[in-house]
């Protein structure tokens, strides 16, 4: 059965129970049900900087390599550290903003926002390359207030091989 369109995988809205999958089948599209969600919590060991725990959740053992998971989380942690880094550049940006009564941000983005966009692209990229083929989905932590990295596990309905 050929799908008419191919979409980027998206998380099901939390409002949709798994029974909605049957309704959508009317539109000739199959929606895999959400099997469960894993939440990677924040690591506060170094203070309030954004950093996530690298502990590998047991629910993902069957689907993902520990190494890949580690790499993803470490990269995210590094990117957040880059966004929140205190240094000459961030101070300069802060002082410049103060002097212009913060109107400068009407024309330019803050460094933090730039890095967040980078993170968002990275997550999208990871989802496409690594997580989607395994029936997983990473949610950008900014959607959750940088509290958790939400990984949605979809039911395995693939007919073909795992990779």
């Amino acid at each position, binding site marked *: 059965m050929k799908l008419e369109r*191919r*979409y980027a995988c*998206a998380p099901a809205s939390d409002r949709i129970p798994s029974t909605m999958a049957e309704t959508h089948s009317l539109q000739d599209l199959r929606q895999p049900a959400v099997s469960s969600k894993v939440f990677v919590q924040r690591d*506060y060991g170094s203070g309030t900087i954004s950093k996530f725990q690298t502990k590998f959740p047991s629910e993902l053992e069957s689907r993902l390599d520990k190494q890949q998971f580690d790499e993803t989380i470490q990269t995210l942690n590094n990117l957040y550290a880059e966004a929140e880094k*205190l240094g000459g550049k961030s101070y300069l940006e802060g002082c410049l903003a103060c002097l212009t009564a913060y109107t400068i941000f009407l024309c330019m983005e803050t460094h933090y926002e730039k890095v967040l966009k980078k993170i968002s692209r990275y997550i999208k990229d990871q989802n496409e390359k690594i997580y989607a083929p395994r029936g997983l989905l990473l949610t950008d932590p*900014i959607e*959750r*207030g940088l509290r958790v990295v939400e990984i949605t596990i979809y039911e395995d309905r693939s007919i073909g091989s795992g990779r």
Partner: protein
Amino acid sequence: RRNRGGLLNQRSFIVTDPERSFPGQRSRSPRRKWQLLPGRNRFYCDGRIMMARQTRVFYLTLVLILLTCGLFFTFDCPFLASHLTPAIPAVAGVLFVFVMATLLRASFTDPGVLPRATPDEAADLEGPTGEGVLNPPPRSREVLVNGQTVRLKYCFTCRMFRPPRASHCSLCDNCVERFDHHCPWVGNCVGRRNYRFFYLFILSLSFLTLFIFAFVITHVIIRSNRTGFLSALKDSPVVVCFFSIWSIVGLSGFHTYLISSNQTTNEDIKGSWSTKRGKDNYNPYSYGNILTNCCAALCGPLPPRSGLLLSTTVLASSPPSPLPPLPPLPPLPAPPPPLSPPPLLPLPLSPPLLPPPPLLPLPLSPPPLPPPPLLPLPLSPPLLPPPPPLL
């Protein structure tokens, strides 16, 4: 595009557009994300401006500042400019603009509201259910932050463990990151994202009030050469100005101390890092030296809004990279289940798709009676009476 489709072909996913998932609710105009935010906030200018529910005291602050400065510029400045130097009204003008800019910025900026836990997240914390009843998680959790034990409390309203330094504001009904206090004068919580604006506001206001006070006195003195000091003084409520100045200057001094030691008002009042609690008690967030603490608080990177406040529209814009056309839509947090204690605000009607109208206050349902306001302000600035119009 075909190649990427090949990768995804093994699993067939569809985009779940929140608009399409409920066919009966299909609407032409996109629903704004911030409208789905629970909590008692007011939004204006299409979600760009965010304030607390009670804004009367904020309008009072505005009126007092405008009135004081207006009278100063009208009655004292002409005299001072002509008799002394025109730099006086110029400096007063610059200070006034800075005060207003920082006040508005402090009032209108999202203080760093934490999005509430999604039902799945809350369920994950609450643990496995027995007979369908969710067990609430333990009241608090201990973590080690830079060697110091910090207790993270569980927020029953937001259904999550609060990050360190976050606190739940009962007036706004939100958890706020790095919560300092709720300031009624500014009409908003003071938290991570607007603390520097608040500090610059009270600092510049101190300078402005001292400046005005000094030059009103000067004016009185110069005039008293003609009419006599006491008669000139009795025309001016300078004595009242004197007390209000000390409150604002005192508050600025207090916040300067807080910034230099990297504490929040909340922590200082509770004595969280005081050595009285224990010999080894220290502030794990302090950078060690005053300069770094000050720079970090005032010039550090400013995090953008998070969660529902991330963008003003529901539908995310398409990404620049060559990906399949429809972008993944972020999941909307569902309304909290009936177990959640606070009342849920009903979703307002979606506004028409027009350029953002000025001052579009959201019709929110009347909240329950708010608890007594939490004002951990050590000094509340009393009224700023205007300088007298001298004869």
